[in-house]
C-alpha cells in the first residue's frame, strides 16, 4: 500500500505541469461547489432561523407605517405612528396566541457608538416577548431590572459594564447572538420603563417621539394560535382592530423564498454540471495517462503486480491529485468568502435575505464533503481506464498494443 502510494506520488511528479493543471482544474470546480454549497446552506439556515427563532408569524403596525419587507417578519421598524399598547389585550382575538408589543425609537447623539451614528432603542415587554430574549447568548445571572439593556450582536461591551445613554447610566445585562437582521444586530434593547425614562432626553423635530409615551407602541409581533390559518387570523385582526395594517411573514417572505429557491436550484444544477464535467475530464485524462504508461503497467504485471495493485496505484494517483485539488479549492473558497464577506452579506441583506454564516462545524462538514467529492471524482475517473488496462495480458501491454 505504501509502495503503491509512493509510486503514485512519483508518477504525479513526472509530469509536474500536467499534474498541476489537473489539480487546478479540480480546485476551481470544488472551490465553486464548496463556496456555492456554503452560501446555499448559510442562506437556507438563515431563513430557517428567521422563521423559527424569531417566531413571529405576522406583524401588526399602524396603518400608515412604512414597512421594510426585508425585516418585516422579524422586527418592527422605527416610525412616528403609534398604537395603543393594550390593543390586543382589549380585543382578545382567538387566533392570536401572543402579541409582543415593541417600541422602536431611532435616536441620534445618544452617546452610544460614534457621534453621528443613529441608534435604534428598542423597548419590549419581558412578559410578552418572544422575539428578543430567545436570542440571548450571554447575560448576567439575575433577573432583568430597570436600567438594564441588552445589546445586539453588532455592539461590543462587557457584561455588567456601564453604558451611558444620553448621559444616563445603564447596565449591560446581556448580548444577543447574530441574527443577520440589521435592527437586531445594532439595536439596544430594554424594558418599556427603561426606554420611557429616556423620553426627556430625546429631541425630535416635534419633541420626543410619540412612541416614548407610556402606553404607546410601534407595533406588535404576533404569534398565531396553533392551527390558526394565517389568512383568517389576518381578517380577524383587521376586522377587530382599527387603523392597523397586518404584515404577514409568509406572504412577504414566500416571494423571496421562491425566488431564492429558483436561484439555489440554478446554482445546484450548475454545481452538478461542473462536477460531472470535471469527472469526465479526469476520466479522459486518465485514459490518456494509462495509455501512455501501458508499458510500465505491463511491466509491473509481469513482475507479479496483481490487478488490484495496478488499479490501486492508478486510483491512488488520481485521488491524490484530485484530493489536493479539493483541498486547494476549499482554501480558495474560504479566501474568496473572506475577501467578499462584507459586500456579500450587504448584498444579500439588500435583496431581502437576512444572512447568518453557517456555523464552524458545518462549514467544516461542507469542506470535507467537497474534498471527498473531488477525491471520488478522481477515483471514478481513473477506475475504468485502470481497470481496463489491468485486464490485459502483460505481454500485450509491454508490446504497446491496444
Amino acid at each position, binding site marked *: 500500500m505504501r509502495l503503491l502510494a509512493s509510486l503514485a506520488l512519483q508518477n504525479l511528479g513526472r509530469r509536474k505541469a500536467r499534474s498541476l493543471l489537473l489539480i487546478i482544474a479540480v480546485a476551481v470546480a470544488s472551490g465553486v461547489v464548496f463556496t456555492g454549497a456554503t452560501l446555499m446552506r448559510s442562506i437556507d439556515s438563515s431563513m430557517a432561523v428567521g422563521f423559527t427563532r424569531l417566531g413571529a408569524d405576522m406583524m401588526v403596525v399602524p396603518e400608515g407605517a412604512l414597512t421594510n419587507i426585508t425585516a418585516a417578519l422579524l422586527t418592527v421598524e422605527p416610525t412616528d405612528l403609534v398604537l395603543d399598547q393594550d390593543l390586543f389585550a382589549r380585543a382578545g382575538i382567538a387566533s392570536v396566541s401572543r402579541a409582543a408589543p415593541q417600541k422602536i425609537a431611532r435616536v441620534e447623539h445618544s452617546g452610544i457608538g460614534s457621534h453621528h451614528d443613529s441608534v435604534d432603542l428598542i423597548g419590549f415587554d419581558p412578559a410578552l416577548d418572544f422575539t428578543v430574549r430567545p436570542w440571548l447568548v450571554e447575560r448576567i445571572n439575575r433577573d432583568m431590572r430597570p436600567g438594564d439593556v441588552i445589546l445586539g450582536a453588532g455592539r461590543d461591551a462587557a457584561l455588567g459594564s456601564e453604558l451611558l445613554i444620553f448621559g444616563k447610566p445603564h447596565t449591560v445585562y446581556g448580548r444577543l447572538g447574530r441574527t443577520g437582521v440589521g435592527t437586531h444586530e445594532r439595536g439596544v434593547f430594554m424594558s418599556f420603563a427603561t426606554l420611557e425614562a429616556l423620553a426627556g432626553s430625546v429631541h425630535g423635530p416635534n419633541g420626543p417621539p410619540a412612541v416614548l409615551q407610556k402606553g404607546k407602541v410601534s407595533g406588535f409581533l404576533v404569534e398565531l394560535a396553533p392551527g390558526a390559518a394565517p389568512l383568517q387570523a389576518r381578517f380577524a385582526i383587521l376586522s377587530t382592530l382599527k387603523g392597523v395594517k397586518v404584515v404577514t411573514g409568509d406572504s412577504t417572505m414566500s416571494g423571496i423564498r421562491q425566488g431564492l429557491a429558483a436561484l439555489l436550484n440554478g446554482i445546484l444544477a450548475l454545481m452538478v454540471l461542473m462536477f460531472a464535467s470535471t469527472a469526465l475530464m479526469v476520466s479522459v485524462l486518465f485514459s490518456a495517462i494509462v495509455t501512455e504508461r501501458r508499458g510500465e503497467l505491463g511491466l509491473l504485471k509481469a513482475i*507479479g503486480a*496483481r490487478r488490484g495493485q495496478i488499479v490501486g496505484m492508478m486510483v491512488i494517483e488520481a485521488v491524490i491529485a484530485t484530493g489536493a485539488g479539493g483541498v486547494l479549492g476549499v482554501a480558495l473558497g474560504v479566501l474568496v468568502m473572506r475577501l467578499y464577506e462584507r459586500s456579500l452579506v450587504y448584498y444579500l441583506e439588500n435583496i431581502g435575505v437576512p444572512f447568518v454564516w453557517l456555523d464552524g462545524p458545518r462549514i467544516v462538514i461542507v469542506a470535507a464533503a467537497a474534498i471527498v467529492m473531488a477525491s471520488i471524482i478522481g477515483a471514478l475517473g481513473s477506475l475504468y481506464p485502470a481497470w481496463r488496462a489491468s485486464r490485459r*495480458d502483460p505481454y500485450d501491454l509491454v508490446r504497446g498494443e491496444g
Partner: protein
Amino acid sequence: MLSCRGLRKDYVTERGEVAAVAGIDLEIAAGRYAAIIGRSGSGKSSLMAMIGGLSRPSQGQVTVDGIDIWGLSENALAAFRNKRIGYVFQFASLLPTLRLVDNVALPAMLGGGARSSVTYARAATLLGQMGLGDHLDAYPSEVSAGEQRRAVIARALINEPALILADEPTSDLDEQTEIEIMDELMAVNRERGTTLILVTHNLALAEQAEQIVHIAHGTIVP
C-alpha cells in the same frame, strides 16, 4: 519441470489470423539451460510470453512444476509470475521513477511478506554481485544500457525464481557486454540451479546450452 502441450498463439489482425505459435510440445527439465533459436518472426517471444505467464495461449497448456499455470486464477497467476519466474526483457524494463535498488526490490515488495529492510539488503547484495554496488541510488537513466540489463537480472533474481526467462537479453549490447551478461546468467544457472531459458540469435551462445529448441513458423524443427 516445464512442459508445454499443444501450445498455440493466434493473433487476430486486420489481415486475418496470424498463427505466431502453431502447436508446440516441449519439455525442459529442472535446472537446465535451454536455448531457443529461430529466425525473426518465428514465434520465439510469443512462446516465451506464454511460458512466463505473460500472454494467454489461444490453445494448449503450460505446466510448471506440475501446475497448469493458465488454469490459475488471476491473483494466483500474478503470484506465480512474482515468485516463480524471473523475466529478462529484450528492452529497457526498469521503472524510470525508481532508483536501481528500488527497482530490484520491487518484485519482493509487491509480493509482500518479507520485511523491507531484509528485501533492500538483499537487493543491494544482488546489485553488488552484478557489479552495480556503487549505483544503488542511481536512476535507470543515469546508468548505461548494459548496467540497466544487469539490474534487470538482479530484479529477476530477487524472489529466487525457479525459472529465468531471458528473451534476447543482450541483442542491443556490444559484444563484450553481451559476454559479461551471459556469464552472469549462466553463473546463476550453474550456481543456483535455476532453470534458464534463453532466446538468442547468437549461435555461439546457443551452442553452450544443454538443450536447443529450434523454432520456425511457430513450430519446433527437429
